[in-house]
């Protein structure tokens, strides 16, 4: 591999880009990863709640999530040589009203139809699983095989392992265009005019993918949603389930370190303004605190030490775009993960690597094809 040529170029060094790089290096392929920001995992990869969930997924996405939980997550720390703080302690999705339970039953039924073990439990059983629930909780859905991991460590672990295997990561390198050469996507041009060349190009750049896609004449219908996360001080070990609610007003977990990580919203995420960096809104963290304390009053004295915001690449139909296209051979889509990319990042990395390597994919990705977006009538 010379300085600017490789078998595969990956644009975007988030969790999925780094996972793809790792998988490609394991296949013996040379990889260059180009990242616009100065940091590995600068986007949603280090700004999410860490859920490794199957429950609550779109049926199209569920096979990916289930494959990952069954085959990849349990051994990920060992595979990558560092602890990524994966906990398979189940997912509690909580309800306080009959209306909530109705929603939970619907989600449970969908999951069951796809073969996932999710069941409705009553308040007593929920409290047995997690004794800190408020008295207002009247029931929950329970998926025992769900869990969570530390997204920052997962991203850095894939990066570290890929780098050790020889993948060349370049940060601070903004890609402005992908160009075809001899009928394939081969050339990647940076803002400083540098040209990188490969046999395949994988684009995993979150919402910003559209700016690069334009150079190939592509557009993915997605919009940036600002989502926020808050982190508490280190708390004594309390519970390690992944948590959510029927109303999706917050989600989160307690980390290895002891801090709680909660994501959530104020309801105005689609309308937040952008001052160039994702800035947290003044009303979201208080809203999340009220939501969390409604379910976990024991956390009322937990001190928040940090909040952060990140953009979600929310797809028009809420599932990602993964795959090849006949229009431009050699080009691989990997974007619009819609805020649930982290839990499937090891799988997505595996699939993108298979696509880039010209292999048959382990799982069917046809549901995520780029050309699925059609006018409604």
């Amino acid at each position, binding site marked *: 591999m010379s300085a600017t040529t490789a078998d595969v170029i990956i644009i975007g060094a988030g969790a999925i880009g780094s996972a793809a790089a790792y998988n490609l290096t394991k296949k013996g392929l040379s990889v260059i990863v180009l990242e616009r920001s100065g940091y590995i995992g600068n986007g949603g990869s280090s700004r999410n709640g860490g859920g490794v969930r199957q429950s609550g997924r779109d049926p199209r996405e569920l096979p990916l999530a289930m494959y990952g939980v069954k085959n990849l997550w349990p051994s990920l720390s060992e595979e990558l040589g560092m602890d990524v703080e994966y906990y398979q302690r189940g997912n509690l999705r909580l309800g306080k009203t009959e209306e909530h339970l109705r929603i939970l039953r619907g989600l449970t039924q969908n999951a069951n139809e796809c073969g996932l073990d999710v069941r409705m439990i009553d308040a007593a059983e929920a409290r047995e699983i997690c004794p800190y629930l408020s008295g207002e909780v009247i029931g929950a859905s329970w998926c025992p095989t769900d869990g969570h991991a530390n997204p920052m460590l997962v991203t850095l672990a894939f990066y570290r392992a890929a780098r050790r295997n020889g993948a060349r990561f370049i940060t601070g390198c903004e890609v402005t265009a992908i160009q075809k050469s001899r009928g394939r996507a081969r050339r990647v041009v940076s803002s400083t005019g540098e040209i990188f060349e490969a046999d395949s190009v994988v684009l995993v750049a979150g919402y910003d993918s559209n700016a690069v896609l334009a150079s190939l004449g592509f557009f993915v219908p997605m919009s940036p949603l600002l989502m926020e996360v808050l982190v508490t001080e280190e708390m004594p070990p309390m519970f390690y389930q992944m948590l959510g609610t029927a109303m999706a007003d917050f989600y989160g977990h307690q980390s290895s370190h002891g801090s709680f990580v909660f994501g959530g919203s104020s309801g105005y995420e689609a309308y937040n*303004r952008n*001052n*160039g*960096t994702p*800035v*947290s*809104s*003044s*009303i979201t963290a*208080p809203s999340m605190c009220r939501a969390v304390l409604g379910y976990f009053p024991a956390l009322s004295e937990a001190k928040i030490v940090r*909040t952060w915001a990140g953009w979600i690449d929310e797809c028009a139909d809420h599932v990602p775009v993964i795959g090849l296209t006949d229009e431009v051979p050699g080009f691989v889509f990997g974007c619009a993960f819609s805020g649930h990319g982290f839990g499937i990042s090891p799988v997505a990395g595996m699939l993108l690597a298979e696509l880039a390597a010209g292999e048959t994919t382990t799982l069917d990705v046809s549901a995520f094809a780029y050309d699925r977006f059609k006018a409604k009538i």
Partner: protein
Amino acid sequence: MKRYDLIVVGAGPAGLSAAAEAAAHGLGVAVFDENSRPGGQLFKQIHKFFGSKEHKAKIRGYDIGAGLLREAEGLGVKVYLNSPVTGMYLDREIVAETDGAVSHYRADAIVVATGASENMVAFDGWTLPGVMGAGAAQTMMNINRVRPGSRVLMLGSGNVGLVVGYQLLQAGCELAAVVDAAPRVGGYGVHAAKLARCGVPFFLSHTIVKAEGETRVTGVVIGRVDETWNIVPGTQKHFDADTICVAAGLSPSTRLLLMAGCEMYEPVPGGGRLPVCDEFTGKTSVQGIYAAGDVSGIEEASSAMIEGRAAGAAAAAELGYISGGELKARLDKLETALASLREGMFAPKNRGKVFVKTDEGYDISDSLLRNGYLADGEATKYPGVKSVAGIHPVIECTQNIPCNPCQDACPKGCIKVGTNIVSLPAVDEKAGCIGCGMCVASCSGQAVFLVNEDVGGGFATVTAPYEFLPVPQKGERGVALDRSGAPVCEAEIVDVRTSPSFDRTFLLTFRVPGEQCSRARFWRREVRRFGRD
């Protein structure tokens, strides 16, 4: 949402000045501070300020703070105490925590005056209880009124280290040493001299090797550093101490400015980011947001107060409360005052430069920079030190620092600084000194003495400023100490003066043998080697 014309974050010298200035122009102003009392660092600063009259020179920090607070509150400024600002959001919105709840506020302009925080140096044992910031020690003794320890070693010879070191002595602590890895004293020589003549040793080109102790500091080992900052083998020295203070400089507390999206830059690599802003009004790259005081660059509180005024005036103009012409007139006046503080060898623009001569061409004392005191015989090189008959001031002020109260204090015109306040004071031996002592009490650096070289019987008298307890009594016998704190002779107190205009500085006059009058600069009660046989 509650809305103010101007919100000021931080009730220190810059913040209160900005608030008072803006309120005087008619703005509705609120100030938020996380502390239970306003004033920022001013209430910890018990020394007299430098500068000139317009900078409130020779007034102690806490009195300046009290005055600013009265002024601001008199103008209707709302001061929110115990109210940390938790964040600054788009369009000049802040969220503040008060009484167990948060509230949202918006302002048409915001002055961020969040000050600075102490830098830390890591060394073996630096996490032990007893190692603390110099500012922490200052807070404990001057605000909480508790001694931080009994025997303290100070790391850092900048003004913070020197001033806090002196305050530790005033609080009754022992100061084991002042240690600095730099080869020269970083702060004002006059501050160093105050410590040295009390017997505090200076170890320049030294740093802490380790703090000793199991559950708290019991001792310190220091060692000399070479040019590459490594410890030279065999140079280690041990001190008994229960406290180590670290005065390693300050970093601007810029987090709110960062959160607001203000453009930043880093003038000194590794020194920390500063907001890109007008160096006078503090106007940042974000519309309506100003930075004033240390958060826009570390300077003295005197400068911070002027920057605060300028920011307050600029906000008033931005919001239409004063015209452009009025703003210009106001700023011109403030700018002149600020410019005079930003002159001299300690000016922000001269940071890191090594001066070997004063503006006037006098050599800077090497001994002062390495040991903290002028060597014997050196003082007479300077224009403030003259040998004349009768009582006269001796001004051991040998660096260009912005300060002139001595000139204003003398009713007889014996002392000339001139219009440039960083000039060295010169004594006019022809003007008739009456020995009133106003110059001695007015000198914020305690560098002025009254000397009468011949009071008869082969004796001389030296009058020195004294700010310790207990105050000696007339007739008490003790020893005179030289500039290094070494005893030079027996000395009897012949006069102790105090006056409201001296502002808690006592003037001790002690009698020494005539030949010692150029060396004796301090008095100590204990009679040791010079006890009567």
